[in-house]
């Protein structure tokens, strides 16, 4: 049974943009793995991140808090966080709580890239 996996790559067309694909669930247990991964990226100078949520089956308050903290840190450094294609279930949770008005959500990688370029 898979729990949580993180896959990181750079965009060919914008090498300073990192795409982090999440697979599994981001809860109070797996959030430590997520934080470790984003800490490393930020330490290495990354400020623009696309978080690919197509494989994310669930997010808890711990996960939402991690995304909020990440977004804030990237903004402070002049960067930005964009969320890409959450599953219907994760979108619904974010939407019911009001977070779809707070995060930058995108339907495609191209759209996300546009936002991070501007």
């Amino acid at each position, binding site marked *: 049974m898979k729990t949580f996996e993180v896959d990181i790559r750079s965009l060919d067309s914008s090498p300073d943009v990192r795409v982090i694909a999440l697979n599994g669930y981001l*809860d*109070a247990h797996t959030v430590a793995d997520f934080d470790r991964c984003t800490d490393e990226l930020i330490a290495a100078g990354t400020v623009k991140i696309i978080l690919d949520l197509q494989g994310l089956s669930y997010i*808890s*308050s711990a996960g939402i808090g991690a995304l909020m903290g990440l977004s804030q840190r990237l903004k402070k450094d002049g960067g930005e966080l964009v969320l890409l294609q959450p599953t219907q279930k994760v979108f619904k949770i974010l939407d019911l709580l*009001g977070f779809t008005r707070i995060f930058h959500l995108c339907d495609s990688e191209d759209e996300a890239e546009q936002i991070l370029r501007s």
Partner: protein
Amino acid sequence: MSLPRPFILELRCPVEMSILSWIRGVIAQTAAALGLPEEDLSKIEMSVDEACANVIEHAYPDPPEEALPLTVRVEAMTDALRIMVCDSGVGAGDLRGAVKSIEEYVEVKRYRGLGTHIMQRFMDEVEFVQSPGEGTRVCMVKYLTPPNATVGSA
């Protein structure tokens, strides 16, 4: 499809974060078997997850004396699903420190206090009972349509 009620489900487990996904799975399975719509299912799953994560994070600053310090009890009654999450930990903590709104949460930039906010938003009734040294009990209720009122059920 609706499960015959009443029935009771009780889980007793260690305070380890890796237990959460199993608890969510069992709760979601049960809510689905009750014929609840996807949205209610997500709300119940998440509320229970938040209450359990709190026990694991906050209830036992020292290793717990009991072998199975976290109890989740689900009572599916005719007209409601009652879920209790209980511990016998410190029984103290800033339970009233929940954020009042997402705006406040975003504003304050502390990114805490969302768990209890979620329980209160997603469930029909939520009650927190704490006694110092005796632990915390979170009792959550989701109203159900009585089985005989369901249109088109078998």
